[in-house]
């Protein structure tokens, strides 16, 4: 029945094709802009950063801004991209389930011999592909920015930095399916999971700012996010977070299977 999964995922991606451009191009252009301006602000930045309190630098992952990779991490990868992609993930997965329920499409699809678990799996799989495409588009535009500006950005480092966002965002897709097990209203699903996303970010931030509270970071998936653009991808963290996303998706599919789909 992988044919059904592929057909559902293809249809999901086809519906989301505008979203791929709407998210990938602005993020990529923004990232490219950061890379392009780096050579002209390089010296001033280092001085400015040294004036920040050490705790603040630590909290936002701003170390030295001696190279473009460090600048890209501080400006894009420490906050904006993870939060944006996390939100995109939950929107994407919700469009295939609660969005489909609201539009009536779910009733039509469930008139065919397809299980709800397979629908949830297809929505999760398509979201994983959508996230990968948006990140790939962002990396490509960023690399183009580096070529144009001569910023000397390592493509492999940029790829690692953006790739590390993928499992993190996928966790929120998994949580989106869990939320669908409780509500078929897209606003409730996206709102509740977006709340979890921001809460997890704040928990990780507080844990980093206050060493006494560092233990609470284990409640947040951001604890395992790291700084891949400088340190490279941490395979155990990457695989572990991906596995957690899959577990959430499976739990959500189980809940979705058991719930009533009211008219």
């Amino acid at each position, binding site marked *: 029945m992988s*044919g*059904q999964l592929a*057909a*559902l995922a293809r*249809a999901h991606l*086809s*519906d989301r094709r505008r979203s791929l451009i709407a998210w990938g191009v602005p993020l990529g252009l923004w990232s490219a802009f950061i890379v392009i301006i780096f050579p002209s602000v390089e010296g001033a930045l280092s001085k400015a950063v040294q004036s920040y309190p050490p705790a603040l630098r630590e909290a936002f992952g701003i170390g030295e801004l001696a190279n473009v990779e460090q600048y890209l991490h501080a400006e894009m990868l420490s906050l904006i991209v993870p939060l944006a992609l996390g939100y995109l993930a939950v929107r994407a997965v919700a469009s295939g389930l609660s969005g*489909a329920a609201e*539009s*009536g*499409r779910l*009733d*039509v*699809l*469930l*008139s*065919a*011999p*397809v*299980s709800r678990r397979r629908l949830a799996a297809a929505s999760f799989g398509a979201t994983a592909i959508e996230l990968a495409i948006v990140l790939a588009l962002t990396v490509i535009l960023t690399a183009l920015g580096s070529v144009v500006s001569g910023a000397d950005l390592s493509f492999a480092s940029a790829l690692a930095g953006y790739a590390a966002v993928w499992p993190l965002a996928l966790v929120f897709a998994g949580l989106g399916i869990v939320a669908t097990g409780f509500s078929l209203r897209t606003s409730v699903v996206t709102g509740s999971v977006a709340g979890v996303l921001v809460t997890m970010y704040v928990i990780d931030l507080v844990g980093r700012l206050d060493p006494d509270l560092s233990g609470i970071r284990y409640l947040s998936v951001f604890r395992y996010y790291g700084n891949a653009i400088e340190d490279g991808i941490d395979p155990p963290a990457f695989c572990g977070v991906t596995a957690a996303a899959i577990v959430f998706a499976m739990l959500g599919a189980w809940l979705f299977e*058991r719930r*009533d*789909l*009211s*008219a």
Partner: protein
Amino acid sequence: MGISLTVGMAVIETERLTKLYGSSRGIEDVSFSVEAGEVFGFLGPNGAGKTTAIRTLLDMLHPTRGSARIFGLDSHRESVAIRARLGNLPGDFGYGRQACGREALGLLARLRGIDGLGRAEALAERFRADLDRPLGELSRGNRQKVGLILATFHSPELLILDEPTSGLDPLMQEEFLALVAEERERGCAVLLSSHELDEVERVCDRVGIIRDGRLIAVERVAELLAKTQRHNSVEVEFAEPVELEDVRAMPGVVDAKFTHATLEEVFLTYYEEGEGRAEGAGAREGEG
């Protein structure tokens, strides 16, 4: 897909099927059966429980108690196998705004493991449905036509239709009723939910009347109509104009009244005459 059922074989069987949920009224102790080659009408006003019963049969709602078997399979545990053999038109059909009918058909065909679109093109021509425009740009009636095609293109063994003629113009309603009759001839079982008494009378073999979530009567349409024969009312068409008083004076006549044709009858008469003229003109052009 061929029909593997024998006419008269029970396709749907429910036993005290009950769905109670939240503050909304569901259905309670609903028991009925639908046979192969039969059109069963589910009759009741809006909110009576028709849609709840259908959604419970389709496993979109899980029953609180009671059971339903379709093709002899449990409607909850074996729902996927059941849905491989049925076609369903949900009430208030929708599929999103961007996709067109052809895309929806393509996806459903792949989900059903069908190569191509079955008889979808022929049905689209018959219902004058536009399969290439985004569904969001279609009127409600034209969307409903696409929904009908999605429900029937794979020639299912069971058709479940929830308010199927909603939004259709009278001509398309006629075409739809003809299609349902053809499906019955093919051996398909049809469960048709409606509050349009006229269409139920014309196409259904048996009806179940549902009120406040309970099935209060299940009877053959012919028997229901026979019960009204005690009124001894007849409708007579005269070839020429007559005076009402002359009719009342006829032996055995207690009362007589003129009735006007319904708007539907007038519309169909005009339209069919128009089509006849257009076909005649086309034929003359062809001869020229």
